[in-house]
């Protein structure tokens, strides 16, 4: 009886999420294939908007910028964040807590505050452009990597490191062969999280990009002010699909290892 009830509630919950979160996106996707420029009338299926997207120089360069930013910022923050997680976990209790608060604040902070602050900071040192956006993305990505890696650091088995040293591996080799593989899952999901966060970002990019540089989101924003074109639906659909795909891979990865582990027990 109770089982049935909770079953019903959980189904209901999924349904609500589907309606409120995904229905608008479904509309967007449908409209990206609509022949008509109208937002209400369906006039038949077309790939025109996608094709004109491909031929659009401006969009292509924005796409490249977005991907380069996402990849570079995720990669660099992966290295910094993993090192930070290792450092934080070996700190004494008090400094550990302080560090975690300092790590969490940038994530909770309003993007617009972070964006303006970073902009004001960056212009002291460099012209705003790709580099300043990259540095900003690294800045806000590091906490996500730390959060993903830290639990793995805490679960990590250090006696394995000693066993490796015992069998003839130097400190560096033992670290790369025995410690890093234990953090692999956390690092992977940290990387993907950072990647999507970077792709997702509009506000901070908008403030730190200066003139000339555009990511997809800042470009769409600029275009929309001139009037909404169906190409933008198509572009948004692609972005959504990519982010969705990346998240699926990232989650599938952690779920997969969990199941594999359970299999042994």
């Amino acid at each position, binding site marked *: 009886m109770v089982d049935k009830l909770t079953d019903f509630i959980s189904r209901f919950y999924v349904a609500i999420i589907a309606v409120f979160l995904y229905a608008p996106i479904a509309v967007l996707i449908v409209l990206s294939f609509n022949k008509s420029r109208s937002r209400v009338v369906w006039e038949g299926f077309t790939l025109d908007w996608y094709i004109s997207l491909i031929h659009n120089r401006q969009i292509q360069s924005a796409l490249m910028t977005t991907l380069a930013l996402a990849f570079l910022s995720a990669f660099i923050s992966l290295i910094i964040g993993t090192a930070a997680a290792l450092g934080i976990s070996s700190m004494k209790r008090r400094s550990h807590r302080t560090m975690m608060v300092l790590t969490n604040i940038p994530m909770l902070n309003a993007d617009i505050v972070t964006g303006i602050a970073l902009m004001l900071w960056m212009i002291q040192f460099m012209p705003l452009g790709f580099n300043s956006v990259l540095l900003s993305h690294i800045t806000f990505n590091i906490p996500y990597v730390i959060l993903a890696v830290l639990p793995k650091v805490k679960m990590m088995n250090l006696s*394995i490191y000693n*066993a490796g040293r015992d069998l003839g*591996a130097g400190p560096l080799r033992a670290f790369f062969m025995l410690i890093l593989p*234990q953090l692999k899952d956390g690092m992977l999901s940290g990387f993907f999280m950072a990647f999507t966060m970077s792709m997702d970002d509009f506000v901070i990019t908008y403030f730190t990009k200066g003139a000339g540089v555009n990511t997809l989101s800042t470009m769409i924003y600029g275009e929309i002010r001139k009037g909404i074109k169906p190409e933008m639906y198509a572009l948004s659909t692609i972005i959504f699909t990519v982010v969705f795909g990346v998240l699926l891979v990232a989650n599938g990865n952690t779920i997969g290892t969990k199941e594999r582990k359970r299999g042994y027990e």
Partner: protein
Amino acid sequence: MGNIILELRGISKSFDGKKILDDLTLDIEKNEFVTLLGPSGCGKSTLLRIIGGFVKPDSGQVFFEGQDITLLPPEKRQVHTVFQKYSLFPHMNVSDNIAFGLKLKKKPKEYINEKVRYALHLVNMDGYGDRMTTSLSGGQQQRIAIARAIVNEPKMLLLDEPLGALDLKLRHEMQRELMRIKHEVGITFVYVTHDQEEALTMSDRIVVMNQGIIQQMGTSKSIYDEPQNAFVADFIGDSNIINGIMLKDRLVLIQGIEVECVDEGFDANEPVDVVIRPEDLIIGTKGSGFTNGIVTNLIYKGAYYDISVTAGTHEWSVQSNVPAAVNSEVSLSIDPENIQIMRKPKSSDEEVIDKLG
């Protein structure tokens, strides 16, 4: 003795201001099976980590085959460790675990495969090469850990309670297995345990430690039969340890009763610890022994009876093949040969003795 492989010279180590090892000196011979035995926290693992290179002593030196290796990192030592548990690499299968050290040394593939096969055979795990380590039982994991160390042909193997996590039956089986392996590969074993039975059955030499110092070392037999102080006597086997006064050579006063013994060389009226093993006490009819007492408890232990006899203020523990009725009055007698007299220690571990008093 030109045969010494490892020398520990005046090793001291403190953690957080607490002295764990105190000026410890020990020589270990080639091919010896030495067991470090002592209660939890007495510094056995710390000593092993110093030999393995994971901990640097505060003072003192470690010599391996005559060379000072005190500051040498673990990967450069010809010594391998089998840790208590959880030391296999979880992301590698059994073969890759065993091959780890050989691959680091860039040995040819054929050689490695051959060695891995040999090592698996040695620990009775033929055919397990492709299994993941996480799918093995505790005993199997320890076998693989041993194989992984031995395959590198170390000159010395350190084993830190390798059987500690196993159940009794498996532990006995693995003890025999370990002794066979030791016999086959002929390397020096330094073994840590707090299980005295394990130490007595396996070792050539036992080093009994407490509070960071060596209390006694010697063969199993000499440690068991002739404990040098009350700590060792109490720690090894069950013992009756009782205060006595040495009246003169070969005569000791226990609880106001004069008892013959075979020990000489004590001062007249020197206070001593008297150690009597429960299996050496003989129960007889009232009046036939050195003391009379009441049977207060009787437990059947399978091979013998555990009998408590209260005489005066002392409760004697006796092991006997024949039962005695509870509440009956009996006598206790003993062969003078089986009485062990020990000087009261003057050193820091006096408090331990007092607790036993």
